[in-house]
């Protein structure tokens, strides 16, 4: 059914890695942020600085993971709009490739890159965590992939409405980045004013952060079924909406 999916996905990965800054921007950059910030905070860490330690242990990994997910989404928005503007989507569509195959390939590419970045981050971050610290890397990676997959559907929705490739990046950033401020990453949702709390509850990123944060801390999946459900709902709604408004040319 998904004829050509594997070939197209592999091809798109190769093409992506050929972009100048492509690999650097979306794979190495988050890792670099992680390492630099880790060093900086680590250097400040005195014996009693619990806040710094906490940030290093939990806040930073989650923050960088969210960055990874958002950069994947932004890159998806850009790629889709460039492909549409250049007639590439239309050309691919005039082959036996099914539309869902073409789009699925792009989602797979972004998920693969997210997983790869995640792996590099774990390697780079090993030194900041004492050997006995238990971090559920596997579970966290699954959580990150679920979160990314869900936010990617927002990316598709944005890609459906941006008029030209030139606007893709700024519009995508304008929609996605404000979410970071409200998602509980810097300020816990509970301590926001009530009005903003209400907004935070409809920001999909809130659930992504809650899930990532919880899984990283070693909480059980069963405690975060609500987050997963919310992310799945976001995916379902955004996918259904994009299916209605997505333009191939």
């Amino acid at each position, binding site marked *: 059914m998904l*004829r*050509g999916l594997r*070939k*197209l996905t592999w*091809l*798109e990965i*190769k*093409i992506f890695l*050929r*972009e100048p800054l492509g690999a650097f921007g979306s794979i190495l950059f988050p890792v670099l942020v992680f390492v630099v910030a880790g060093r900086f905070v680590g250097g400040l860490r005195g014996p009693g600085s619990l806040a710094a330690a906490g940030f290093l242990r939990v806040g930073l990994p989650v923050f960088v993971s969210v960055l990874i997910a958002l950069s994947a989404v932004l890159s998806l928005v850009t790629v889709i709009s460039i*492909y549409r503007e*250049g*007639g*590439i989507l*239309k*050309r691919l*569509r*005039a*082959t*036996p*490739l099914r539309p869902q195959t073409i789009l699925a390939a792009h989602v797979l590419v972004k998920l693969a890159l997210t997983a790869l970045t995640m792996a590099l981050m774990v390697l780079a971050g090993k030194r900041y965590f004492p050997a006995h610290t238990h971090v559920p890397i596997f579970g966290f990676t699954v959580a990150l992939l679920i979160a990314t997959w869900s936010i990617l559907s927002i990316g598709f929705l944005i890609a459906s409405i941006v008029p030209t490739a030139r606007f893709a990046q700024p519009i995508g950033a304008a929609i996605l980045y404000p979410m970071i401020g409200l998602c509980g990453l810097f300020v816990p949702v509970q301590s926001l004013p009530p009005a903003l709390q209400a907004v935070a509850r409809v920001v999909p990123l809130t659930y992504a952060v809650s899930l990532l944060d919880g899984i990283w801390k070693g909480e059980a999946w069963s405690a975060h079924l609500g987050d997963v459900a919310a992310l799945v709902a976001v995916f379902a709604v955004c996918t259904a909406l994009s299916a209605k408004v997505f333009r191939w040319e």
Partner: protein
Amino acid sequence: MGTFRPVIHVSRIRKSYGATVAVSEVSFDVGEGEVFGLIGPNGAGKTTTMECVEGVRRPDAGRISILGLDPFRDVVQVQNRIGVQLQQAQLQKRIKVWEAVDLWASLYPKPLDGNRLLEQLGLADKRNAWFMTLSGGQKQRLFIALALINDPEVVFLDELTTGLDPQSRRAIWDLVRGIRDRGKTVFLTTHLMEEAERLCDRVAIIEHGEIVDIGSPEELVRRHCPTRTVILATENALAEERLGAIPRVENVIRQGSQFTIQGRGEDFVTEVIQCLSENRIRVADFRTVLPNLEDVFLKLTGHSIRD
């Protein structure tokens, strides 16, 4: 060409974009093994019509059958048997030529050998080049390769040579003739009358979304522009009178020693030559100006195709 067996049948299709009617009541047939051209200015509805036949775009009304199939209901079967080159399409900037051919080949049940195809199209030494580094002509040749990879029975070429320099254009024309010689049916659109005259067995002239006339280029010229023009130069004093006496002459214009003579019919030029010969009129110059599709278009639509 033998008997006319239609492989494409289009009957009264209509397509609007909002309030704009792109195509209305368009009907035509394309016969097996012929090169059929849809010609008209930009925005006339050529691409919309072609994309409806390809199954890329759904018409609002009307019937289309291709190879006896419905392009929408039988989309998979149709796609396997047709090859498509879209107007202004691009590929991924950094896809390599061989990768594109390889991907396309993997999508069809019985693909041709991609390497041989690239060789035949003169792209063998560009196998590893990125799409973005190809010249306009090379890109079009790659698109032809992709349109041919599944060994299709019908090939669609939309504005194939637009934007190419004359030399690349001629090279592409040779390729299209090669496709026809392999027994395939070619359906193309162009706004270049020269291209239509050189490539097409039959053309349909389309304007404002409607077909104005259909026929072979020669037929259309005979039908709409039967007037032939002969331009000659002579000092003979009797020339004007004698030339004016030719049976089907319509007009003789004299400018000094140069005469422009217009008349109708297949034999008109011969009659002028006979007249010169019988009257022993010595000429210093003799030219015929034959009408072409460009003139047919001007006659039918009241404006040049480039306006």
